[in-house]
């Protein structure tokens, strides 16, 4: 399954969900999608096209909260980033953990560090700061200042 085929197939099957496709080269594609279409497109990639979920990266930007879901098609050396932009005030998106376990921990981590809510996640408990971090303080958001930064 080649890069072109995947892109064409996605465009064809998920017309309304796909907002933008940036093909940097044959091995790196970023597809911006609407958050609502994330479960369906992920399901297609994982179950039908044979992609492996690598990890997801959350970013706090001026546009709100953005997540890049990194998928890898190892047979083609392709990394496909599914890029979603979430609302600044109420960041939430459907969890992928019910589809594959690989996203379980990273979604917990993003919930903990960025305060993004993952709907229908099996267990959104804190992953890395259990018991030693205040509730509702999200250290990876841009407004968060560490002690050394506050002193400056």
């Amino acid at each position, binding site marked *: 399954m080649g890069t072109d085929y995947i892109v064409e197939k996605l465009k064809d099957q998920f017309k309304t969900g796909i907002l933008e496709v940036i093909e*940097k080269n044959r*091995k*790196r594609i*970023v597809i911006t999608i609407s958050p609502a279409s994330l479960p369906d497109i992920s399901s297609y990639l994982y179950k039908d096209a044979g992609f*492996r*979920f*690598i*990890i997801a*990266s959350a*970013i706090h930007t001026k546009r709100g909260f953005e997540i*890049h879901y*990194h998928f*890898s098609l*190892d*047979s*083609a*050396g*392709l*990394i496909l*980033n599914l890029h979603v932009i979430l609302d600044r005030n109420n960041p939430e998106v459907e969890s992928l953990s019910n589809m*594959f*376990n*690989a996203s*379980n*921990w*990273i979604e917990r981590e993003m919930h903990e560090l960025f305060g993004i809510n993952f709907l229908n996640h099996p267990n959104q408990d*804190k*992953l*890395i*700061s*259990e018991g*030693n971090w205040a509730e509702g303080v999200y*250290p*990876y958001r841009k407004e968060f200042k*560490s002690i050394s930064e506050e002193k400056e």
Partner: protein
Amino acid sequence: MSRKTLIPIGPYHPLQEEPELFKLYCDGEIVRDIQWVTGYNHRSIEKLSESKTYEQVFFLVERICGICSTSHPFAFANAVEEIAGIEPTDRAKYIRSIIGELERIHSHLLWVGLAGHFLGYNTVFMWAWKYREPVLDLFEMITGNRNSYAMFRVGGVRRDIETDKIVAIRKILTDVKTKTDLLTGAVMDDPVIHSRLKGVGILTKQDVLDYGAVGPTARASGVAIDVRKDDPYAAYPLVDWKVITAQEGDVFAKAEVRLLEMYESISIIEQCLKGLEKEKEGDILVKVNEIPEGIGNGRAEAPRGEVFHFVMSDGSNSPARHKIRAPSYVNIATFKKSCVGQTIADATITLAGVDPCYCCTERMAVVYDVHSGEKIMNARELIDKSIRRSQDIMEELKKSK
């Protein structure tokens, strides 16, 4: 509901980056469930990286892991070079691959030693670590450091490998190869190791895909993924080598994959050295003016599997966002599949089976009853339990002869 005993392994259990705690819920000798607790020593490297310049980040990510300290700079370099559209020179590529493969050899030797220790084969432990020393000496000769080599930077490497050093590298490699033969023979032909490791901690192909496991953990279950082959970087497309896989998915298969991979690594280094001799006097660094705006997905095959770095640049001199995924992050999660149903003695080696960077062999572990809180076992006894099991098998084998 039946009474379950809670067996914690940790929390001073430095797997990969941080001290971690495994809670094994046992019914008699059998592990029924496993839980993972971490965050005791979260260093927030991703956040810290945003306050450093690209040059400084190399030193930072090198300190994520002491054992595979070159795999993170490797992946980070790949990510940043992807943003900037830089292609290092062939000479730099060869040097990068040599460092990467030497690291794989010493990391796999370390694992073989520790696995031997857990099974009660302290001779294997001492051999493996003894043969690992010359590899570290090589690092000292090439880079000036036995660990945390500080070799990488955007656009190339910091130090060259001169012709006179190539001779010394060849000599030590030949030595390492004969010792690897010795170790491989000792492990693969030993009936006790066969009965201790075969069929233990099996991870199926489906589990690997479900959890997204990588590296030898995936390859031992018949999933032939290796970033060096699938998404070639550095000098890997320039040399000839093959991906080692096994089908069984048990701890023995994982050991087999690692041992055989060392031969591939040695072969890759030999070919890279030839390449270095051909590419004489080449530059080792491409001049980089600035890193433009954009995103980069960099990955590298660490001894434990795929390391993934996502870098977002806003055109300034430091990353706007830097996401790091170490291979153990996905591999440790597979314990939920591989450990459940095993005995406690086998769980010890299954936990070690994915090579989760055991820095400290003498761990603090106390076994206590969930209900009474009574102490039952300490760390020493836990390892002894595993060692005793090997001895029992040895006795049985002797009797049956």
